């Protein structure tokens, strides 16, 4: 087992990984940028190495600096988390060349599965169902038009080199195709440095269902059931749950088997997730493989009792999986809400700044994977995921009730969060019915504005603070510069 591991990430996921390493008695190294000098993750590690300026390219994406940090501190392995360098095959190779273990799959698997069209071809070869579509990217309008005719409208234009909704367009009519292709290609070029696009059949209101897998270096592979991640805002997942309301045991087994086939075909090792779309008529189609730990991994941990980060470290250290497929059973229901630092009252604009105060909910079946703390700072340079709220309960109805209660107990002052939006979604009738699909937010919450049921109470809270301010409250009347006076302790005076 490793004696020291470096975590090449920040925020909530760095904290999550550091916790697992500490439990395994492994010494830890955190890395941080200028903007994260006061961050939580580096205070959770035994050592912290400064990387450079806040810009990711100067810090969390700087492969040489990170490897140098590992070498200088004697770390034997690097856990890349998610995002940043976690799916960067070059980085995995550089680690190997520096004799440092990359906690993740081999570079070859990252390459094979990272390129969407190549991954599709591999799946077709192995009999994993794929969405009808093009095998190779093309910019030729004639080719695109012919393929769209073969696939059948409506079609989806997608970027070959990346995801997250960038370079995606839905085309319902042949006349719209050419322009959509040009726009999507430009967007893809800007986001991934590669303007390659291809077409797929557009499915109507599918569910996004993914399967967690673990593969060791001894030829063992298991799947850890599914996660449904259909609740997405602008192609970003915000609520995930397991089990999926749409799966029965039969479908689960089929999808699990397909997922294992998908990763084995690429020589996969360590944790990964195979994403599928499940159509309304219950056919599943391969979407892509995420060759890393996912944001939403905690819900799988809650229902299976497996510590996925720990498994990742053990696999990377060469240990065989101690889990067998028949050992893996799901119990109860888990839901995760992503607490994003965006202002739902202002077009979900990012809301960076100082977190004046945060109080997270707690109690049985409540898990907080958070990267923020009272007095901490949310920098502008990184994505706005402040933390994750995960609940577990015996069944879906209770999990929904528990999540609703937990969200209403969550308090964040100083930055805005999407908590009110999450609460409305979780309380909604279609969500309670399990009627979820990737167009859920557009269908049920277009142009959502927060409901403000407690405005009167909020005004009373304002007045309470006016009359009984906290000790170090700045005075708004400009008298702060004067010597302390008994008049000030009486609260604000006005005539």
């Amino acid at each position, binding site marked *: 087992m490793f004696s020291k591991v470096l975590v090449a990430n920040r925020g909530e996921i760095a904290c999550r990984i550091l916790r697992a390493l500490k439990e395994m008695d492994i010494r830890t190294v955190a890395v941080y940028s200028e903007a994260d000098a006061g961050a939580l993750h580096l205070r959770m590690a035994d050592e912290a190495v400064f990387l450079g300026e806040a810009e990711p390219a100067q810090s969390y994406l700087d492969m040489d600096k990170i490897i140098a940090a590992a070498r200088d501190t004697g770390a034997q392995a690097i856990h890349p988390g998610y995002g940043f360098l976690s799916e960067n095959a070059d980085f995995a190779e550089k680690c190997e060349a520096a004799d440092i273990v990359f906690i993740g799959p081999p570079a070859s698997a990252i390459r094979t599965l990272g390129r969407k069209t190549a991954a599709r071809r591999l799946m077709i070869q192995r009999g994993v169902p794929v969405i009808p579509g093009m095998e190779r990217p093309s910019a030729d309008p004639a080719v695109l038009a012919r393929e769209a005719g073969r696939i059948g409208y409506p079609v989806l234009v997608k970027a070959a080199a990346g995801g997250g909704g960038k370079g995606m367009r839905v085309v319902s009519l042949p006349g719209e195709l050419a322009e959509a292709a040009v726009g999507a290609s430009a967007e893809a070029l800007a986001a991934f440095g590669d303007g390659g696009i291809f077409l797929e059949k557009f499915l109507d209101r599918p569910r996004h269902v993914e399967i967690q897998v673990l593969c060791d270096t001894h030829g063992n592979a298991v799947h850890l059931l599914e996660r449904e991640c259909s609740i997405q805002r602008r192609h970003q997942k915000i609520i995930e749950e397991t089990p999926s309301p749409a799966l029965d045991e039969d479908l689960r087994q089929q999808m699990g088997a397909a997922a294992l086939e998908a990763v084995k075909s690429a020589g996969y090792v360590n944790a990964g997730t195979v994403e599928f779309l499940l159509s309304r008529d219950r056919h599943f189609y391969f979407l892509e493989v995420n060759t890393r730990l996912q944001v939403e991994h905690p819900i799988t941990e809650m229902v299976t009792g497996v510590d996925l980060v720990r498994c990742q470290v053990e696999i990377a250290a060469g240990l065989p999986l101690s889990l067998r497929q028949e050992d893996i059973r799901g119990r109860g229901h888990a839901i995760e809400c992503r607490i994003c630092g965006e202002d739902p009252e202002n077009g979900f604009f990012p809301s960076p700044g100082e977190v004046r105060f945060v109080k997270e909910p707690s109690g049985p079946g409540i898990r907080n994977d958070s990267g923020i703390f009272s007095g901490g700072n949310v920098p502008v340079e990184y*994505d*706005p995921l402040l933390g994750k709220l995960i609940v577990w309960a015996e069944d879906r109805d209770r999990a929904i009730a528990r999540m609703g209660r937990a969200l209403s107990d969550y308090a964040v002052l100083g930055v805005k969060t999407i908590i*009110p939006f999450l609460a409305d979604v979780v309380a909604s009738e279609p969500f309670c019915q399990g009627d979820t699909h990737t167009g859920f937010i557009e269908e049920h919450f277009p142009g959502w504005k927060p409901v403000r049921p*407690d405005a009167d*109470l909020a005004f009373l809270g304002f007045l309470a603070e006016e009359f009984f301010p906290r000790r170090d409250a700045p005075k708004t009347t400009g008298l702060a510069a004067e010597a302390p006076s008994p008049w000030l302790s009486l609260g604000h005076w006005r005539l």
Partner: protein
Amino acid sequence: MDYTLESRGETVTAAAERTGPDRFTANVKGKDYAVTVLRVSDFELRLTVDQGGEVLSHTVFVGPEPGGKCVVVNGVSYSIRDLALERDRPGRKKGLSEGPGKVTPPMPAVVKRILVKEGDLVEKGDPVIVVSAMKMEASLGAPYRGQVEKINVKLEDKVSPGQILVDITPMPEQGDEA
């Protein structure tokens, strides 16, 4: 004491009085309340509210934010300003205006592109500067027709709401007489 409070477009007149070392009464939107306040911590208050004989307790979180306070109730945050306080406050520093008539970012951001130079003429709405925050870009437009007098920032500067990034001298609209 009368308060004129505003929150998300709703303006409310509240008449409130301290009635003891831990209590006050208030009339908000025509309803009478008697409130006992327990301060749990710097940011958490427990309010016991008597409204017409019905007594209920609630936890609220209150903290300062630019221009007023933020109150979180049941997970929802309410930004509330005291309009009277803003009117009365003496010597407001230039640059702290929240009016729309300034080239200022809506949130802390980084200057990415400066689209004008000193001396340029701009029309109302012309984009003058592009800022970036959390991987999103926003372009800020000229609040009125005028001439760019001074650019107060350079590329990669960190800027905050309230800070004036570009000084523009207003010019009369075409066709206006003096």
